[in-house]
């Protein structure tokens, strides 16, 4: 009895669940090595993890704080270019590149946070979109640093100066980053800071009456979202090993928006599930379908249809399916018990 209950609480510990989740998705390279899955899976699921990281940040902003941003792509690109430039051209260690790739974009994020005090909803969306486009144009034009239209290359990460990773090891590094960020996000959202963000979304007047400074918490929300996005970008450039300016356009921001709407607002696992559905499924399944699979931009059609379907029938996000299935089972077993 005693043993059973400790086992149960062990399984219920959210941190262990995150680690367990991480171990499962980091098994992918093993499956690839064993020949069960194709090599291309590593790239696709790795990309999914990168999108999920950026989406976690947008979830903090949109899901928790109720602030919209269409600038995720610009900040991902900014993070990618900064890290590529620092590690490639300047030869700085990978760790320094990542750190700078987070700090510099966060300064931009703070400025948008300041602007957000004077704007709401749609207007904020437009302004963030403009910032993103300005950044993309800068990537085009700032050739000495970004390599212009022809793009810029980068290497797989070298940890601590001498551990050179290959693609599959970099993939595991992505998983580690995702799991750590899920834990951090879990802590933040379940404490005072997360409740302040909730309060801000629920009612700005009530939040202020409870002592929540709108200025402070909007800045926090924007800098967190920017930090997540730019980290995702920096991880991207060291995983894909190349970055083009044309990558960081509105569709990327919209894909990340679709991820949290489809997966589930304010749900960490939902964010990952959303990334799998919106980002990985089109690559893994749709493109394999003959004729239809050859249509250009099919994945956008797919995520568009998905958003409509989810908003109509499952407004809480796909992640709630698991909860509802569980409910069904609990109800079913109760009924059996009664009979």
């Amino acid at each position: 009895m005693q043993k059973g209950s400790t086992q149960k609480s062990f399984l219920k510990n959210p941190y262990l669940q995150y680690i367990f989740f991480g171990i499962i998705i980091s098994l992918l390279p093993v499956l690839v090595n064993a020949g069960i899955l194709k090599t291309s899976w590593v790239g696709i699921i790795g990309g999914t993890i990168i999108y999920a990281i950026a989406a976690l940040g947008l979830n903090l902003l949109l899901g928790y704080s109720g602030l919209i941003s269409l600038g995720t792509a610009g900040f991902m690109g900014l993070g990618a270019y900064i890290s590529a430039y620092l590690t490639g051209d300047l030869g700085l260690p990978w760790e320094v590149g990542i750190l700078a790739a987070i700090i510099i974009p966060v300064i931009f994020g703070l400025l948008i946070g300041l602007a957000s005090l004077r704007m709401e909803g749609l207007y904020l969306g437009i302004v963030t979109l403009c910032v993103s486009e300005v950044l993309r144009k800068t990537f085009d034009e700032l050739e000495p640093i970004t390599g212009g239209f022809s793009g810029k290359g980068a290497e797989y990460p070298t940890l601590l100066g001498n551990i050179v990773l290959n693609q599959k090891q970099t993939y595991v590094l992505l998983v580690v980053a995702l799991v750590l960020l899920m834990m951090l996000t879990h802590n933040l959202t379940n404490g005072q800071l997360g409740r302040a963000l909730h309060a801000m979304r629920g009612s700005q007047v009530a939040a202020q009456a409870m002592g929540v400074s709108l200025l402070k918490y909007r800045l926090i929300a924007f800098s967190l979202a920017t930090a997540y996005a730019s980290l995702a970008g920096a991880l991207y450039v060291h995983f894909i090993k190349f970055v083009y300016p044309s990558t960081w356009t509105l569709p990327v921001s919209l894909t990340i928006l679709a991820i949290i709407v489809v997966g589930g607002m304010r749900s960490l696992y939902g964010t990952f599930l959303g990334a799998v559905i919106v980002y990985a499924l089109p690559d893994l399944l749709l493109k394999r379908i003959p004729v239809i699979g050859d249509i250009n931009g099919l994945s956008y059609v797919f995520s568009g249809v998905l958003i409509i379907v989810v908003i109509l029938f499952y407004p809480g996000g796909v992640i709630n399916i698991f909860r509802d299935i569980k409910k069904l089972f609990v109800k079913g077993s109760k009924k059996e018990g009664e009979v």
Partner: protein
Amino acid sequence: MAEYTTKLAEDEVLRLENLSIQFGGLKAVDDLSFSIKEKEIFGLIGPNGAGKTTAFNCITQFYKPSSGAVYFRNKDGQVENLVGQPVHSIIRKGLVRTFQNVELVGELSIIDNVLIGGHIDFKASGFEQALRLPRARREEKLMREKAEDVLRFMGIAELKDALVAGQPYGIRKKVEMARTLMCNPKLIILDEPAAGLNDVETQQLADNIYQVREKYGCTILLVEHDMRLVMSICDRICAISFGKFLACGTPSEIQGNAQVQEAYLGEKEE
């Protein structure tokens, strides 16, 4: 930083002095003055559109008054003028309010909503919270226990993990009241606490207000339409009409006041 004054008498906690606010040509609150004593239950009444809620918002700095002063004796016993101070700093002085339309976060559980009321008492930084460092963990635990105490006091402890969305109006009103109690307030301002409640719930509310004053030792200012409630629980009442002061006194004085009767029922025809 706030300047301290000695504008309040020993037993006073709040005093409005010639408070006015103008929206375009409309004087919503016009030269209003009254004061509230410590541990008093004080009612602010007036016909629709009299400027009660506006007066409220001027006290809590949601609106910036055009002229006049709001003196408040804060938690440390110092007297300061609230006019011009940021909205989110008002609660730190010991002044907290509820809302006419119950402003809670529906997607959060009841206890989490109550914990929002404890926002200012958390000292751990965001960094400490992100890494769950000892101080953040300790604070969270202490505040959670406090929130449970408050919910037990309000009689809704068994609902603490239920989501606010879907709760009946009476429960949500209680949650909002519980949220105000988290910050150890000196003065609670209730904006139409009985609106939308049935007779039984209104009676419970009256009991609750008394209990809050006894247990937490705070002063209560309420704006209310329900005359039965106001007349039965208030120590003193201030009546206003068209933003102007009409009368201030005990419930029976107010009931007998000719000006108040006129404002509510219209002029006598001769």
